[in-house]
């Protein structure tokens, strides 16, 4: 039974990936055939065509997501500490949930006027800022639990042993928070990477991330290119999952 469940679990992960890969290689798939009539690398050559801009889109998305995740993780680390030490901790944490209660698209629609007014609607900086509005509260929520009574006591102990604030941060807080920071980075990267509604609204078609391109291909009923773009889309999350399993869970620090 356990073995069957394991196989089912592995299939549930690998079947969609294998199917996407198959579709990305497919040509000519008339109804009611179960599979495409022919397979070739022709779709993948689309990546190299200068007018496709799919590779550029991939790297643009990667850049945006890495930047959003890095800035969010750094700021959320500092913010979550101040919130954890505040006597208004619970009230401030409620604020962090507002973007999700409203939903990102509604938040974007609400803020769109200000983006236009600031002249950042339809450019990369606007998309970066919009995604940051969504990822930042999420980062604070993830890191908030790290700042518990024990972490604070360890920080204080380090200071009475002679460490300055910087030494405490470098020698104690950073190493013990490594897993929480990586988790926050990965999660906020994924929030940014798969973000569609908000990016589409603020990007107004001028800034096309990979997720937006996948939806464009789907809307055009171009399933082969949609599959090809999806293959690129799932690549970074898969690498992150592998890193997560290989380096984080394997070296989990026991506090």
């Amino acid at each position, binding site marked *: 039974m356990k073995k069957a469940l394991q196989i089912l679990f592995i299939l549930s992960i690998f079947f969609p990936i294998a199917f996407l890969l198959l579709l990305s290689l497919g040509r000519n798939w008339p109804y009611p055939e179960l599979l495409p009539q022919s397979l070739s690398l022709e779709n993948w050559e689309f990546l190299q065509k200068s007018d496709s801009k799919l590779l550029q889109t991939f790297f643009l998305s990667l850049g945006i997501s890495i930047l959003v995740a890095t800035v969010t993780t750094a700021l959320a680390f500092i913010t979550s500490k101040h919130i954890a030490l505040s006597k208004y901790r619970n009230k401030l944490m409620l604020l962090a949930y507002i973007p999700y209660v409203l939903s990102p698209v509604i938040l974007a629609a609400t803020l769109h006027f200000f983006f236009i007014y600031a002249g950042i609607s339809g450019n990369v900086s606007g998309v970066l800022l919009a995604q940051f509005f969504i990822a930042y509260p999420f980062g604070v929520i993830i890191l908030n639990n790290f700042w518990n009574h024990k972490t604070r006591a360890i920080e204080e102990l380090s200071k009475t042993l002679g460490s300055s604030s910087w030494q405490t941060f470098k*020698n104690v807080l950073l190493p013990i928070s490594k897993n929480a920071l990586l988790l926050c980075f990965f999660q906020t990267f994924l929030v940014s990477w798969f973000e569609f509604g908000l990016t589409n609204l603020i990007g107004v078609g001028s800034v096309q991330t990979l997720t937006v391109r996948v939806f464009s291909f789907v809307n055009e009923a171009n399933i082969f290119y949609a599959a090809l773009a999806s293959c690129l889309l799932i690549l970074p999350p898969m690498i992150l999952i592998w890193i997560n399993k290989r380096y984080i869970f394997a070296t989990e620090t026991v506090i």
Partner: protein
Amino acid sequence: MEPLLHIDNITKSFGSETVLHNVSFMLQEHEVLSVLGKSGSGKTTLLKILAGLEKEDDGTISLSRKRMNDTPPNKRNIVYLYQEPLLFPHLNVSENIAFGLKIRKQSPDVIKTKVEHMLAEIGLEEHAEKMPHQLSGGQRQRVSFARALIIEPKVLLLDEPFGALDAETRVQMQELFKKLSKKMKLTSIFITHDLKEALTMGDHIGKIELGHFKRYESKQDFYDDVDSGAQQEAAFWKQFN
């Protein structure tokens, strides 16, 4: 003789609640002062103020005749030890003990010699490479002591350090602390709610109750004070004779 630590009229409130009322006492060099106090009596707040981790509302703290009120915790050379050993989870036993020396940028050779010596003192030479989660509660507390003692603090503040240990380990730790305290001529304040432990560990006894501090001249004084609880404790054990 000039006292090492001089606490004068320390007052502290949290909101409308005053947790320390004009606390004053002195601590001589190489003296161990046991302080008895129940939960919520203000003892932890007092230690945190002395360590620089909390700011007093009023009063003066002097160490070697130097006013310390505005000195940050890392410059006071007063180490505050929690009830929990709180070892740094990413460092092994040796690295934990060496922490304060590395911060002080001592040479690797000096650090190595001192750490080895300290490991021998606490009887954990065999466990030098172990990580904190591989140690027992008593072993962790030993490492925590060693990490504090290796930097030769002017004052060691111990906040119920053996409170979480079982009875047998607790006695072992009390003996180890007494041995090290005598050998290294420690000056310390030892907080406990255990009357017997206070009498065993301290050269002198103090008591903190609802933010008011009282220091007894001698252990006899402490015993004679009906409110100290010592007579009731003695009477309890006498009934079995």
